[in-house]
């Protein structure tokens, strides 16, 4: 979940930006006099408000969500990773600003959000070819071999990008003009993946009568292979200063069509929170039907399921009555780790003044966020707790976990409308 940002947290960057604007407003214009230094007519007035709305068909690249592998039973070297390919989503980008009088500069606020929710499901009952990658490998899969015959996975990427920039003219030529800008940038990025792995049709002994006198429904529910599941999430919340340049070139003599290019670079400092949990299962044998002590862990192919307490007497009780299925829970959470990122943004576009101060524009934009995501994964786990109860917790050594940083790129075509008044 994105945390709501209180108004007070924005006070400092807004004040800084405002102070910067006021300071710069006292400086002479940085416009390079090249003989074409006449200010635009629109800047003769006291100031202008500017707003634009943009639709961006954005696709994330580099999410690297790999919930499972596809195992080839006939050729182990042919095992392939199955990844979740993030889809292209149509998102909006909002931009508004105020152009100061006398061409002293512009204050611009930009908000961009990206949200991608994608799934990867494979269901092939009875065919245990899907490698279980996300949960702990300890007892993953009904046969403890890390394979499932079906899995459902879902991955989500969320990015909120907020910018406050102050623009000034860098130079202005007959056809080409440029502005530089500095500002404040805040980026919140979340990534999460969860997956459930099934053993829908395992080849294990069934528990039908006459195995047990216990109602078969009870045994069915008790020993039916439970699905392994895992979740991994990470959040980056960072802020920092940015700078950049924008270029504008007239196309033709009408001065109604421009080509534009923008580039920005931000260095962000922030905090990273990450979380991981996993639940796998195992079968154990107890020394009595009710309660009792842990005897040993069953191993595939689970012959004990169809054995009798007295092998020579099929009318004796079934061993299955002493079998239990345990949950093996593993979890790890890291909060507020320091993190740093670099955000780069580039855009190429065409802008057309269709009517008075109304512009239409479209182009290609690319955002790059370095080390903005994190995948937390415990490495070594050790069982602990009461091994007789239905659930067994595995404690995790917090110092022995991997934190894999991820970089993200967003790119796509955009189209928008802008108005100055």
């Amino acid at each position, binding site marked *: 979940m994105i945390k709501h940002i209180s108004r007070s947290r924005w006070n400092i960057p807004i004040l800084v930006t405002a102070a910067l604007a006021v300071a710069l407003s006292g400086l002479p214009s940085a416009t390079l006099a090249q003989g074409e230094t006449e200010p635009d007519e629109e800047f003769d007035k006291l100031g202008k408000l500017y707003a634009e709305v943009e639709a961006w068909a954005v696709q994330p690249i580099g999410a690297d969500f790999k919930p499972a592998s596809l195992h080839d039973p006939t050729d182990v070297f042919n095992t392939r990773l199955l990844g979740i390919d993030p889809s292209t989503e149509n998102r909006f980008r909002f931009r508004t600003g105020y152009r100061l009088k006398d061409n002293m500069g512009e204050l611009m606020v930009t908000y961009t959000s990206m949200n991608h929710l994608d799934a990867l*499901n494979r*269901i*092939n*009952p*009875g*065919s245990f070819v899907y490698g279980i990658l996300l949960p702990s490998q300890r007892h993953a899969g009904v046969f403890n071999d890390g394979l499932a015959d*079906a899995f*459902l996975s879902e991955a989500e990427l969320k990015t909120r990008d907020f910018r406050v920039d102050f623009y000034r003219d860098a130079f202005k030529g007959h056809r080409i003009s440029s502005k530089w800008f500095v500002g404040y940038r805040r980026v919140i990025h979340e990534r999460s993946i969860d997956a459930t792995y*099934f053993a*829908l*049709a395992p*080849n*294990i*002994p*069934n528990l*039908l*009568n*006459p*195995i047990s006198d216990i109602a*078969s429904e009870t045994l069915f529910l008790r020993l039916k292979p439970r*699905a392994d599941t895992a979740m991994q999430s990470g959040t980056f919340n960072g802020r920092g200063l940015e700078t950049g340049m924008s270029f504008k070139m007239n196309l033709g003599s009408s001065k109604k069509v421009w080509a534009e290019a923008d580039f920005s670079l931000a260095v962000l400092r922030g905090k990273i929170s990450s979380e991981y949990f996993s639940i796998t299962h195992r079968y154990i044998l107890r020394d009595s039907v009710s309660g009792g002590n842990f005897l040993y862990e069953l191993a595939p192919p689970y012959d004990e399921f*169809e054995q009798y307490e007295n092998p020579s007497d*099929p*009318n004796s009780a079934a061993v299955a009555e002493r079998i239990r299925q345990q949950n093996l829970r593993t979890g790890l959470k890291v909060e507020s780790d320091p993190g740093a990122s670099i955000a780069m943004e580039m855009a190429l576009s065409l802008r057309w003044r269709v009517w008075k101060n109304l512009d239409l524009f479209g182009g290609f934009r690319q955002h790059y966020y370095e080390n903005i995501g994190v995948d937390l994964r415990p490495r070594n786990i050790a069982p602990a707790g009461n091994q007789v109860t239905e659930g067994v917790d595995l404690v995790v050594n917090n110092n022995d976990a991997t934190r894999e940083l991820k970089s993200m790129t967003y790119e796509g075509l955009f189209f928008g409308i802008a108005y100055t008044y």
Partner: protein
Amino acid sequence: MRQLVCLAVLALCLIPMAGCDSEQPQGSDAQTMQVLIQAGNASAGLYDVWEQYYDANLDGIPDETDPMGNFLPQPVFVACRRAFQNGQPISGTGKTPWEYSLEISIIRAGTTTIERLTTTEALNSTFNMTPYSDEFATGAQPPGNDCLPPAVCNSIGRLLGTNRIVIDSTYDADPQDNMNLPVNFVDNLNRWDLACPGSPLLNGEPRMSGTLAAPLPSPFTMGLEKGDTILVKARKKIGEPNGVEVFSEPTLQGLVYLNGLQISNLTGTSVSPSDQAAGISFSFTVN
């Protein structure tokens, strides 16, 4: 002229497009599946079997009594004689009736929910009984001296002791002597009893040879869609059914037919070992 050619080409392109009708119903993917559980590879005795009746007055109508005047509950009956080879009784292997528990579930295409289709898995001899043997062995011998006039005998063949005709037979060749004797008892005349294995002697239901009073167990039948997966579990009951005489336990085997064709690529264990109360568990996905 060029415009005319272009228009003609365009018209030709439109013709096949007009033929397409997106509203046409698509072909149904529904298929009929049948699951049959059978117990096979059971070892049992082989018998020479014939149909027999008495006709002292040669009127072609089976008599109500035997030549000694004993009343016959059934004028026409099935008689069995243990098959011998080199002076030793011989046995064969084949299917046998056996009670079993059954659970059939389905996973619908694209889901991970297991839906149980069978309402009960209880051992039930009416519904969960594997089919009888229906095979004939070679080398059948005629009744010979076991069918002396005025008896009339029509040979049926050499059958495994688990054949339905044998099981359902009610005849005892010498009911006065053998009313309380076990099947295949050798009496003091050193003559094999002609009662068939499993016969409840004179208390059973009579039937004509080659006819079956009760149908064979029906396969479990249902419609499946493409992508559906069927899960089948079954387990043998401990001990043979009443009237079935086997020398070794059978294996339990699951068979799946799709639109009448047997499916060979079942996933899992579709044939059990011959152990007591052995079970099977397999699945099949409609592709």
